[in-house]
């Protein structure tokens, strides 16, 4: 089977992600920003597919694009957009944003400079057809043994459970 991971698709998806990412922060209308964010998330899902990680791509679509963004839109629709679009956008938060952006830039530059030492020089030959099974083996372990990430996975799930309980308790005064 011919590989789909051609440079054309990479540049298309990456370009789409960057352009819509810029649109997210430049649009004055919050709903337009949210729609641009959905495009970003979907193109990132496409990039995951190109890395032969279909499961991650599927989860990206179902959780972020399908679940979280619907709730985002739900909240945004109830906000008075007329007023918020007239507010000054560049308030006192910009030094923090600048610092964060510079840190990220430094990280990217260092990753690019030391890339050969940090990452394998070619893509690992993971069979696309068993990606889900491999992730399952990593998270839950194979044949009775604990997988390398089982502990971290369980800790994360406990953390999420605590967050759910917290949300329920905060919204409901009387249970």
């Amino acid at each position, binding site marked *: *089977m*011919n590989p789909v991971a051609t440079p054309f698709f990479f540049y298309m998806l990456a370009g789409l992600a960057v352009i819509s990412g810029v649109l997210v922060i430049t649009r004055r*209308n919050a*709903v*337009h920003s949210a*729609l641009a964010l*959905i495009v970003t998330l979907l193109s990132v899902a496409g990039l995951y597919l190109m890395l032969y990680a*279909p*499961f991650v*791509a*599927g*989860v990206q*679509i*179902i959780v972020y*694009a*399908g*679940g979280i*963004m*619907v*709730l985002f*839109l*739900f909240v945004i*629709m*109830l906000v008075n957009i007329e007023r918020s679009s007239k507010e000054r956008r560049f308030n006192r938060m910009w030094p923090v944003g600048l610092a964060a952006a510079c840190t990220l830039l430094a990280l990217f530059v260092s990753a690019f400079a030391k890339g050969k030492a940090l990452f394998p020089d070619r893509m690992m030959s993971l069979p*696309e*057809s*068993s*990606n*889900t*099974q491999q992730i399952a083996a990593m998270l839950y372990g194979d044949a009775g043994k604990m997988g390398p990430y089982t502990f971290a996975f369980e800790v994360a799930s406990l953390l999420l459970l605590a967050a759910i309980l917290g949300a329920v308790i905060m919204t409901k005064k009387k249970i």
Partner: protein
Amino acid sequence: MPNFIMSYLDGSVRGTPGEAGSQFWALIYVFIIFTGVSVAVMAMNWLERKALAHFQIRLGPMRVGPHGLLQPIADAIKLMLKEDIIPAEADQFVFWIAPMIGLLAAFAVYTVIPFGPSQAVSDMNIGILFMLGVSSLGVLGIVVAGWASNSHYPLIGALRSSAQMVSYEVAMGLAVVSAILMTSMNASGTGTLSMIGIVRAQQEQGVWFIFKFFPLGLIAFVIFAIAMIAETNRAPFDMAEAESELTAGYHTEYSGLRWSLFMLAEYATMIAVSSIAVTLWLGGWMRPFPNLLRAPAWDFIFSLFPGLTFVGLAAIALVGVVRMPVHSFFRIQRIGLAVFAALLGLIALLLLTIAVAGRSVDTTVAASSVARFREGIDHVYWFVLKVAVFMYLFIWYRATWPRYRFDQLMRVGWKVLLPISLGVLVVTAIVGVIVS
């Protein structure tokens, strides 16, 4: 080009076009599916109006063509010619793009629906996840449409539908997971998310998942069947377009072609979620008792079904011809219906011929390609028949049950379906571990 065609007919291409890397056949399949779904939506439109009318002791469409058979075409022409109004205060761009989002999500799903072991555009490793994910994008179209209309009724409809879809997706997902768990009941102990793999697992285990671990599979199926009505915004859960309260809900401000795109997306989604249910619980493309009655004679008998179905349809049309009142006013309609009946009979004859011709186990290229063709027809026929049952059920529900109130809807979703589906999931896992 003939090379491409021959590669399929002589059997050197196995599996789906996506698997074989054949872009030509993938494109052909996409065209066939797109046309087929659009025609099915038109047929469904006619059937729904007729069936609803008969439920309520009316006649339904009778004027355009015999028994209103040409009504969907007239409707389509009317919708295309209608003025396309965009409200002055609406958000132009979002208003324009909203129906496209819904339509795109509804049709993208069809890439993984397995109409047969090789009759799908592609077989993905994450098939069912892809289907759930992409079909959940459809709600974005509805939400955005309601907001962009800049009007109260559409906004309330959009809010209702997003709340409803998000809450029913949870129960739906858990029911799906309990069916996927059942696919891992084999020697290697690994399940699959691929749509074709799920049907193959049912074939290997010799049981449709609806009957597996009775009644666990049945309960999961019923939860899915309820959640999928809420997911597609159909009665009795059509809160988003409750006409007695919200005029028409999220598409109140839409008209003409854009409105018809919403309708197309809604019906396409209905077919898509029905195919998920058929694939997961009702054995997908398999005919009844593929393991129990596996003798060639049984195979032949079951392969006659597609032809016999069309014989039945032709007979119904003939009865219509005979019963039509004798009056000069009905002459053209009578002739039209007779031609329609003859057409159906011709299709029936063709299908029966293929069934008989495909019976011989010959090794020549021509004979084996006929046999393969017959097999393909069988698979698609059984799949479509099962989906058609669901489509009829959608109409039946709409005619039977009154609309739920919104708080009742939320209560059913969160307090009844969610706990039951969680319980079914846990019990399925426990039973699976004990049995294996």
